[in-house]
């Protein structure tokens, strides 16, 4: 009598379908594409002279100013619409970001704080605290207000939802500043592109801080001064960014004289947003892991 071994194939493990748009992936694609576009434009105008370095073509400037928004609509928003469980109200948050930037932030900067009249000549710490307590805090408070009074807390089921909505508000916010540069300044096409990249990267990066603090206010048990601390931290990061940008784009003294180093400014802006994305992604993942361990499952409030 012999026994034939019966071989059983292991049961195929069903892969859990992730029903939401992967926020970090789309955000990374957008900022990388924007960086490539600006670098290409800079190379074409400053190195190969295909586009005149003095070109101020309004249509080209307007196209560059609208590029971050176009990328967000094509990648993030389209991805959201295709996800099994899309986040509702994303477009509305983006439009609200544009409205508060145009209606409050820009008038505050141009008519009340007028930073270009007193901050560029200040020392490093003067610039950091000057920007922090004026346009830095104002921008982050306005983004907080947009999220707080539109989608928080009922749309914040996971911490990543906060990130998705904050990126939408930030892209709307940055777009209005980009359009203002394209429409109302005499900047060249290359200068406009560099400015658009700098503004977009800084707003996307710093907006995540407010998003994380708002998410924790809904999901965690933070103290009563939590949001205030978050706003001050975001404003400080904003001030530091402006402070370092001023140092980065002015090249050092040499026998040939002084000059600007726009590529260093672009590298700083991209490095800053990359660092912010990586840091906040790590913090969100750690917080999610802690919540999962505490509740025994994925946190979906």
């Amino acid at each position, binding site marked *: 009598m012999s026994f034939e071994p019966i071989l059983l194939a292991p049961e195929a493990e069903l892969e859990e379908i992730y029903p939401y748009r992967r926020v970090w992936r789309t955000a990374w694609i957008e900022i990388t594409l924007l960086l490539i576009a600006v670098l290409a434009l800079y190379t074409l105008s400053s190195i190969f002279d295909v586009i005149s370095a003095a070109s101020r073509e309004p249509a080209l400037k307007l196209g560059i100013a609208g590029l971050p928004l176009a990328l967000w609509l094509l990648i993030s928003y389209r991805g959201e619409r295709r996800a099994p469980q899309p986040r509702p109200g994303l477009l509305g948050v983006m439009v609200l970001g544009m409205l508060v930037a145009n209606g409050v932030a820009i008038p505050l900067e141009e008519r009340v704080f007028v930073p270009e009249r007193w901050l560029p000549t*200040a020392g490093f710490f003067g610039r950091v605290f000057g920007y922090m307590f004026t346009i830095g805090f*104002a921008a982050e408070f306005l983004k907080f207000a947009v999220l707080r009074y539109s989608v928080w*807390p009922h749309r914040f089921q996971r911490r990543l939802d906060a990130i998705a909505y904050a990126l939408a508000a930030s892209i709307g916010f940055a777009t209005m500043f980009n359009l203002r540069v394209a429409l109302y300044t005499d900047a060249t096409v290359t200068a406009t592109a560099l400015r658009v990249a700098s503004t977009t990267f800084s707003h996307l990066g710093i907006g995540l801080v407010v998003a994380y603090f708002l998410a924790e206010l809904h999901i965690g048990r933070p103290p009563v001064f939590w949001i205030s601390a978050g706003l001050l931290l975001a404003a400080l990061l904003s001030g530091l960014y402006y402070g370092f940008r001023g140092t980065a784009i002015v090249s050092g003294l040499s026998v040939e004289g002084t000059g600007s180093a726009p590529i260093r400014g672009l590298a700083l802006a991209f490095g800053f947003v990359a660092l912010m994305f990586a840091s906040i992604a790590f913090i969100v993942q750690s917080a999610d892991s802690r919540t999962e361990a505490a509740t025994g499952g994925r946190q979906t409030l």
Partner: protein
Amino acid sequence: MTELIDVRERAPLTFTQRWNTYLAIILAAGVMVVGLTLRDSSLNATVTLENLESGVRAQVPANWLQDTTGDEYLFRVRDPNALPFKTTLQVSVLTVGPDATPDLVLNLLTMQRSSRFATYHEISRSDDTLRDDPAKRMVYAYTEFERNPSLQSLPMVIEGVDLVVLQGTQAVVVTYREEQSAFDDHLYRFDNMLRTLEIF
């Protein structure tokens, strides 16, 4: 296809959530005040400028370009960020005879400027005081052309004011000049300088 419908009721905010919002709003008001104070302290910061030989001292805006080398003035400061015209404050001293009056000094200035400035004309003249000393104030205007022909800009109308006070055999002339549309907005800088002007 399964459609997900959100049927959860919105839970009321907790005490911590509510107070986080209130504190954020209070903080925003506080930060706004700090920001405006920083701006004002920077924009209105002054430095002392003096000429010991002529015995004149005044507070002038910090971060403005200072010039103490001119032949026509003791010192002059100009706002480097002002466009299209660099806002100017200056103090000059003229040697005068014992019978001179502020009116005569202003007449002399008018004659000199009529040949130097295009379309120069006097707008008004009035009595004033400077630290209880009688003085005379004259408002005038002229047009200035952009010196760089490649900029192809229209002429600017410059409005100016002089305040003349006599001190022994010296006539101290304090001047403020600004592009006409911004003249009233920045007149406070002239008043600030007059308040701090010392003639010793």
